[in-house]
């Protein structure tokens, strides 16, 4: 790997000075945003420093169970975070999100590491952990958006859904419009970001690889791979969670149970 410029805490402090200027601006204009920015920035710094420590330790152990455990923990946290972002709940919603995020991310990470990249050993954390993390971040967004939209549609379009049922629709026929809306909503961010990638935005991972000295054409190929895998993962996870939510709200006997949805 080509050498790259290491970065020191003093250099980070210099970058933070510029943030102080931006903060001064919002304070001067009395926008009331300063507190939120400071808290968020502080969280980001602490979280990333901790992750740096954990990753350093995990990379050093080189034990497959430790790495697999970390991957599981990350997926679990992503599942919980995805549900936390929605405003409604039904019994079993956490399990549905966990199953979806675990199934989709492990399937796609596994395929990428074993099938596409053929990493030796397969658990090499340098590949597995960043890949898995990126998939999870996107799956989390896909799950929370599609789940939230599905539950919202079931409440808002309750009369239309019941009208379809009253006319003789099966549960699937009655639920198809909200299911379709939910999946479309879950896939919007990834579809949009692919559409402008390289033109409006330079993806973070690719930028990072180039900064770290990788050949740009290599970095581009990695980016294409990761975008394709993210899309697959988001699609799997959104489909899984919406279909699971569908079976929770539409029973096998074709009855609809919006009363199972509670606002939090």
């Amino acid at each position, binding site marked *: 790997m080509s050498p790259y410029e290491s970065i020191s805490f003093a250099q980070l402090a210099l970058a933070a000075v510029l943030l102080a200027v931006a903060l001064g601006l919002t304070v001067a204009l009395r926008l009331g945003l300063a507190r939120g920015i400071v808290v968020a920035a502080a969280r980001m710094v602490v979280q990333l420093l901790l992750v740096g420590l954990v990753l350093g330790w995990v990379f050093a152990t080189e034990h497959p169970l430790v790495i697999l455990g970390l991957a599981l923990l990350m997926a679990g946290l992503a599942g919980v975070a995805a549900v936390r972002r929605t405003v409604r709940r039904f019994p079993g919603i956490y399990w549905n999100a966990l199953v979806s995020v675990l199934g989709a991310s492990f399937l796609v990470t596994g395929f990428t590491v074993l099938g596409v990249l053929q990493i030796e050993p397969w658990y090499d954390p340098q590949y597995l952990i960043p890949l898995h993390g990126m998939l999870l971040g996107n799956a989390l967004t896909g799950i929370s958006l599609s789940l939230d939209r599905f539950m919202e549609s079931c409440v808002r379009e309750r*009369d239309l859904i019941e009208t379809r*049922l*009253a*006319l*003789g*629709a*099966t549960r699937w*026929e009655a639920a198809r419009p909200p299911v379709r809306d939910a999946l479309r909503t879950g896939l919007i961010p990834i579809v949009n970001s692919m559409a402008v990638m390289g033109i409006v935005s330079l993806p973070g991972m690719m930028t990072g690889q180039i900064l770290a000295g990788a050949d740009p054409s290599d970095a581009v190929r990695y980016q294409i791979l990761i975008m394709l895998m993210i899309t697959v993962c988001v699609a799997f996870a959104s489909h899984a969670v919406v279909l699971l939510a569908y079976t929770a709200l539409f029973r096998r*006997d074709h*009855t609809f149970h919006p009363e199972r949805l509670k606002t939090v």
Partner: protein
Amino acid sequence: MDALPLSLDHAGRRIDGRWLWRDVDAQIDEGTRWAVVGPSGSGKTVLLRALAGLDRLDEGTIRSGGRTLDELSLPAHRARVHYLMQRPALFPGTVADNVHAPLKLAVHRGRGYDANATTSALDALGRPVAFLDQPIDRLSGGEQQIVALLRAFQARPDVLLLDEPTASLDPAATEAVEALVARWLDENAGRAALWTSHNPAQIARVTDYTLDLADFAPRPEPA
């Protein structure tokens, strides 16, 4: 197969631990017109929804054509015993889109659109066929209820469950809805209708039999 007779056997429904009604026995036969009455909150809507198989009973049995709802496929049952909401929910698009919508469902597969059912009904109401091209967001409340009925007719039900269908309509629109239902009943002696209404004059006009839910509300247990 026929939906009638439609019967309730020791039917009961409980909401939040309280029985709305219990031990309801009734049989709706071909050619009958029923009123479901009772004070507000007595569970009239809940009863109609249970008959349509939209909600399950907490106790007792509903039979349609001699078979319990558990033995029947609910989509097929709901097409025969059709529940109409007080405020109809119309699908986006035009009147025609709504009237054709039932034919897209699997339960009605292989069955064509009955154009005559729609045009003869519009004719009876003195409305032009161009009404079908109207976008639904320009319809009055009465027109929306007419569209809901025209749409229901395409599902070829044997029983209509009418939940306060004219509660928010003016007298002319009320008359149109009543006329459409009366016409539909007259076409075939094997049909039946159940109405809920807060208007005693309407109940007297459109029904022959009464199911009073006040008779089935459990009294507080003696201490």
